[in-house]
Structures are given as structure tokens and as C-alpha cells.
């Protein structure tokens, strides 16, 4: 069953979070001359948030024993 489920709602929450984090004004906030391990902070932020979103989605979907 893939219907409206707790997992589905969690996914929607993650997506909404992603919509906020990967948009104005957050992108403006991290847009600066600083660097993280030699990588400009904006690039590091975008890729970091993106990877975190994917990890969260994978965790929500693949977690066992909680199908409802």
C-alpha cells in the first residue's frame, strides 16, 4: 500500500522543508565570501542541503516495520 500514509506525510514535510531551504531568502543568507573546506559556502550549502534531503527521503521510505 502506498496510499496516504504517515510516510507520505513525512515526505511532504521534507519536501516543504526543501522548498524553503533551497530558495530565497536562505540562499541569499549563505551567499558570501566564506569557504567550507575550500569550497565557497553557497555551493557547499546547496549541495549539502540537497544531499541531506535525499538522505531523509531514503530514510523515511526504506525504514522498516513502520508501514502505516
Amino acid at each position, binding site marked *: 500500500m502506498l496510499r496516504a500514509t504517515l510516510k507520505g506525510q513525512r515526505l511532504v514535510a521534507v*519536501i516543504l522543508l526543501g522548498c524553503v531551504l533551497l530558495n530565497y531568502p536562505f540562499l541569499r543568507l549563505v551567499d558570501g565570501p566564506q569557504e567550507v573546506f575550500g569550497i565557497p559556502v553557497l555551493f557547499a550549502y546547496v549541495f549539502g542541503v540537497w544531499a541531506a534531503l535525499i538522505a531523509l527521503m531514503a530514510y523515511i521510505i526504506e525504514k522498516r516495520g513502520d508501514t502505516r
Partner: protein
Amino acid sequence: MLQGPIIIAASFAYLGALFAIAYYGDKRSDEGRSIIANPTIYALSLAVYCTTWTFYGSVGRAVSSGIGFLPIYVGPTLMVGLWWFVMLKIIRISKTNHITSIADFVASRYGKSQALGGLVTIIAVIGVIPYISLQLKAVSGSLAILFNYPEIVMPQRSAALPFSQDHTLYIALILAAFTILFGTRHLDATERHEGMVAAIAFESVIKLLAFVAVGLFVTFGIYDGFGDIFRRAENAPKLHALMGGGASSGNYGNWASLTLLSMMAIMFLPRQFQITVVENVNETHLRRAIWLFPLYLLLINIFVLPIAFGGVLHFPDGGVDADTFVLTLPMVERQEALALFVFIGGLSAATGMVIVETIALSTMVCNDLVMPVLLRQSWLGLIQRADLSGLLLSIRRGAIVVILILGYIYFRAAGEAYALVGIGLISFSAIAQFAPAIIGGIYWKGGTRLGAITGLSAGFAVWLYTLLLPSFAKSGWLPADFMQYGLFGLALLKPQQLLGFSGVDEITHCLFWSMLANIGCYVLVSLARRPSAVETSQATLFVDVFRQSQGVTSRSLWRGSAHVDDLVPLIGRFLGPERARTAFQDYARRRGVKSVAELAADADLVHYAEKLLAGAIGSASARVMVSSVVKEEPLGIDEVMNILDEASQVRAYSRQLEQKSRELEEATRELREANQRLRELDRMKDDFISTVSHELRTPLTSIRAFSEILCDDPKTDLADRKRFLSIITKETERLTRLINQILDMAKLESGKTEWHDEELDLREVVEQSVAATSSLFADRNVALDTHLTGTVPPVLADRDRIMQVVINLLSNAVKFVPAGGGRVAVRLTVEGEALRIDVEDNGPGIAAADQAVIFEKFRQGGDTMTEKPAGTGLGLPISRQIIEHYGGRLWVISQPEKGIAGATFSFTLPRGGHMRERSLQTGARAAAAA
């Protein structure tokens, strides 16, 4: 080593390998052992989204706008998360209704409208053509650059060449031939191509590996890791602006609109719909795709920025097109094998896109555009032709060639004025026009055919005017006047500053106006008129697709009569007679009928036939064809509404039934419990009677025994006689007391007791009780202490009853304390709104287990089997009844287990609001009397 023949040979070897995979996939599928029935393969095949746009174009985009290339991949990541709801619904609808393309989907939703199917097809073909030309441009460009190895020479402008010398044309034709071989070898009613999907998944792996390989080479081979590239870029004046911030990402509106655009593209691009919906083997494969596909997008984008910056650092003079960095960087470093691998990667990105896109488009062109027109031309006599499946295949093959030629023409006309991503975005904006009609169509029953047609047309017209025509103008194919001064010289009509709206890029501008027109027309026109019968029924089938197990199906919305002999040949004409016969035999077997001829030509069969046909020629044409051989009674809107109402009533009834049955279960449970309680009470009554009889018999027996002695033996001496008579008297008294108490108890329990309430001073009551029991205390030589507070407020109660309680407690206490050393204390205190009396003794105490029991009838503390009962067993129950009548509490505290001797019986009597009131009235009456 990197010479023309080798490059050509490698390319064809790659295409051959693809073909082998596809062939193997089809073979396995025919054997029923699918190799694509696997969520990972499904997710990989979705990556057909990544074309040469991604492979070559992202780097070019990054050079001009920093992370501006990313929204195209962030959007799908976000959208895919919502697929759990949205795409699942679309897949379910498509499978239920045998939908094989996006045009079919829209047409079917809005009442199986041929006009709408045709419109969607036209928009899709025109919209996607720039996208196909992008692939041609990328492949021909990369091929031209590779041919010149070891020189780095940018390709000539194709437009300057005559057609016969333009190798892009040959590439287009080769791709067309390849696609035809690939996708249209035979006709399948479900339009599924397992072999193709397997090959696409393989291509996804190749292009990812190629891109990551060149990324690793640039980042760690040419430079010294990410930090090194970014540090050098920081110092290059040209790149500094791209390092985040400033002009590069300043346009956040642009970022948001590209994200939105790609969210729609990932769902409605014809090839994405084909792969995600039509080729889907199992709905549950969506689960893994939701995270695996975004992961793919992330991986293929990690090295875009390093390659972009590395390219600019390597070719600082700008003579090399940034769209070719992926290829030219390995070339300039003399990495021949890597350069060839990159070229193959780019080829796989392009072929994947072209194959799926043109197959999807050719299905739409054939089913929703050409066939409806041809079938209407009665002079062609198509309907009488025995086998049309060959014609269908020819139309599709023709469509593939035409689409690729159109792509080539656009490439020559406008393609060179734009970077790769710019061309792709024009297509995305066209595809986005499908979103309102589809998303609206699956969640809103009110959308009508006319609304969808006007919405789509309006949005498409705006797109044509604000994006497509300007793209021709920019490359000089159209006069640029209307761009600069607006149509008819009206400045408000400037295509890229419509109504003076400026300050955003052309894509955002087009998205805004086209969506406004599209959604506006769709909603307003839909609301203007009541939907027709067939619109209403299709809307219900789509929107309520998850509820159909207990509601409307398309069968319940059909009425008419048909003959099996008409239906089978009809289907045979389109699918081929052999396949049609097999399909109907399967159906007959499922229905438990021996042969096709015995099938009942009912709504089910007609529906099955229509579905079969819909797979081959689209739902709109299928409907027309089936109704040509079936006598159908058209349903009026009222009838459809009735059927839908009935269905919703059925649903409502079934909900009510469920509720009723739940209530019934609840009632049954309550009844069962009540029954159990009754049985318990019955058992208790029996116990009570037997106990009472037992209690009564004991004194009776002894009375009788002594009376018999006195009667039988006249010689008994006087002293004995006297003793016997006194025993008889005592036992009689006990009997009387017992009977009185039983009657008392019965009265209390039935509520028939008369209460003579009056204002009581509890001190007085306690004193009187103490006086009444003083002889008992004196007999057993037990000390009695009374602690009474000075004055207590009066309570309203029955004097005799309260005395009865206090006496009962006192006599109990005196009975259980040791004779001689026993002590009993009575205390009267005020406790808030109540008065409290404690009777404390220093007897053996009452075990915790007995503390509840002693308040039950005929139950006494201790072992009643061995010890002589010390009371009737009714005193405490009666006392508790009395106290509870007045809203008080009677309880005992005793902890013999902890070695604390004695027990304290306490009760409270509330003064109570109503009692105070009554006492005041009494007081007032008393005052008045005085």
C-alpha cells in the same frame, strides 16, 4: 588513435550494444521473465531526464550563471517527493483506463475528446522540437570537435552549409532509423517497450560514469582537488563573479521559476510520462525511485562547477564554447580514451532522450492526430480494411522521421542563437502548459473539456508569442522589428516585455503570463458551463480512482447492445487478427467461458474491447470505433448524475452499514457485559439467600435443641432450665436482631427507608451512643476515650440512623479488642465542609485483604470457618449504606502487616449546601416562631 573511422566505429558499436540489450530485454519480456521489473532499473530509466543538456549544457550554464544550472535538478528532487501521492494517482488512472500517452490522458479525462487529444499532441510536438534540436546540436557539435583532434576547433555554423554537407542532417536520419528499429518493430496494445527501458537504464549508467570520469580527471588530474580549483577561480577576475553571490545568483525569482518549471517538466515531458507511467511495471517501484532518482541527479551534478571553472581557467580567451568543456578539456590534455568515452556518454544522453521522446510523440501523433482524421475520411474505406496494424506502424515510423526532421529544421533556424540550456528551457515552458489540465483533472471534478481546450490554447499561444517566435527572431529567421517595438508597433505587445512587464528573464516572463492565461481560462471556462454527461463520468473515474473498488466503474456508465462477431474483427483490424483472437480468448478464459463465441456481449466485454483498442489508437478514437459497431444508448446528463448519485449513495450506505455494524458490535459487547453482571447478581442473590438461611438456622437450631431438651426431659433441674431458657431467649433476640437487620438492609437497598432528617449536633449523638454501649465496655473492661471538639456545626440527618452507625462501630471495636487491656477512642473533628468521626481500637487489626471484604454482606474478617462469628455480618454494610446516603464516606485504616496494632474506622458526614440552606430555613422558621 582518435581518427574519424574509429570514432564512427565506436559510435555504431555503442548503438549496436544498445540494440542487443533491447533485444534481450524484449526476449525476456516475451518469456515472462522481465529484466526491468526492478525498482533500481526503474529509477535508472527515469534518468532519461538527463540529456545532453545535462551532459554538456550544465557546464555552459554554470559558466554564465554559477549555480544557476541547478534549479533544473532541485525541482525534480522536490517534485519526486510528492510522487507518493500525485504520480501514484496518475499511474493508477492510466493503468485502469489503458492510457498510453499524455495526450490520451488529457483527452480521456475530459470526456474522451478527440479535439483535446489532438491539441495536446500538437503542443507536445511543437514544444519538444527545440529540445530534440538541442540533442542534434550537441551530438553534431561534439562529433565535429572530436573529428578535429588534436586541434580544438569550434564547429562551423551549420546554417552556412548546404543540406547535403551538413552532417547534423545525417545524424538526425540515423537517429530516426535507430528509433524506428528500436521502438516500432511491432505493435503492442499496452505500448510497453521492456527492451527499450532496459537500454535506457543502461544508457543512464554510461552517461553518469562518463561524466563522473571526466569530473574526476579535471578535479584531481588537472587540478589538485575541489579546493584548488575554487581557489584559482577566486583569483580569476572572470570567475570571481560566479563564486556565489553577486550577479551569478542574484536573481532569485529566476531560481524559483526554473525550479517550478522543472517540477512540471519532470512529470509532463512526453518521455518522462512514457517512462514513469506507461512503462511502469509495478506501482511499488515508485518507492525507491523517490530517493534513488534524486541521488542520480545529485551525482551527475557534483562535478559541473569544477569542470566549468577548470574550463574557463584553461581557455581564458573565450574561443572555446563553454558547452563543450566536458569534451575539450580531456582533448587538450591528450586523454584520447577519456575523450572518446565522454563522446559516447554524450551520445548515450542524446540517444536516450531522442528514442523515448520520439516514440512517445509518435504514439501521440498516430493515436490522437492522424488516426482520428483518417478514420473520419470514409472515402478511404479504412474501417472496412481487414488489418490496420500495418498502417498504424507506418504512421508511427513516419511520425518519428518527421519529428526528427523538424528538430533538425529548428536547429538550423534558431538553434545556433542559443546555448543548450536556453533551447531546453523553451521546451520546458511549453510542456508546463499541461500542468493545469492534468493536475486540475485528477483533483478537481469541475474541469471541463472546453475549459481545458481554452486553457491549453491560451497558454500555448502566449508561449508561442513570448518564447518561440522571439527565438526565430533572434537568429534572424523572422524580422526583429516585432521584438523591439512590439506587434503592430504597440510597445505593450513587446513579446518579452508583455504589458511592460520587465526585469525578469524571458523564461520567468513567459511562465508568468502563460500560466496566468492557462489557469485563468481553464478555471473560468470550466465554471461557466455545466459539464456534460461523459465529462462528469470521466471526471469521476479519474478523481475517485482510489475509491472505485466500491463505486462507479466505467462499466456502470455504459448501456447498449453489441455482438461479439462485430467486436472481435474490429479489434483485429487494429491489433492484427491473431493478437485480437488471443486477447479475447484470454478474456473468455477469465470469465469462465469455453470459447469466444459464447461470450455475452455485455457492458464488460464492450469495455474490454474499448480498452484494448485504446491501447492501440488512443481512447478518443477507440470510443469512436467501438461505437461504430455497437448500438449504444447515449446516457443523458441526468442519467449519469443518477448513476453517480447511486454510486455515492452505495458508498454512503456501505459507510452507514459499517457504522451500524460497529454500533451493533458495541451493543453486543455491552449486552454481554450486562448479562455477565446479571449472572453475578443472580449468583450473589443465591449466595445471600443461602447465607441468610444459614445464619437464621444457627440460632433456630439451638433454640429447638434446648426446647426439645426441656420438653423431653421434665426432670431437668431448675438451674439448668433457667440456663437453657436464658440461652433460648438470647438466641431469639439474636434471631430478631438478624431479621431486623436483614429487613433494614433490604429497605436501604431498595430505597424504601424513611429518613427522619433533623438538625443534629453530632457531639450529642456520639455521647448518646457511648452511653448506649457503656455496658458492653464495662462487661469486657475496655477503656473508652472520647475526644469531642468544643462545638461543631450541625448536620441534617436521621438521628437514629447515625447513632446506629456509631454504635455499630463502637460495638465492633469492643468485640475485637482484648478483654482487660483493650482501649477504644472516639474522635469528632471538623474536616472542611464535613464532620468526621474516627473510632480507633488497639485490637489485632484487619488484614489488607479483608479490608474490602468486611463491607460486604455476611462477610467478616478473619477465618470464618474456624472462628466463631462475632457478629451478624450486616452491621458494616448497613452503616456504609447509611453514610453513603448522606454523601459521606466510611472506610477503615489498618496495617497489621507493618506491625501496627489496631484499626481505625472513620466516616465523614458532609454538611452539604442544600443542608445548610435547609437548616437556615429551619432557623428562620424558628426565629419567626419566636
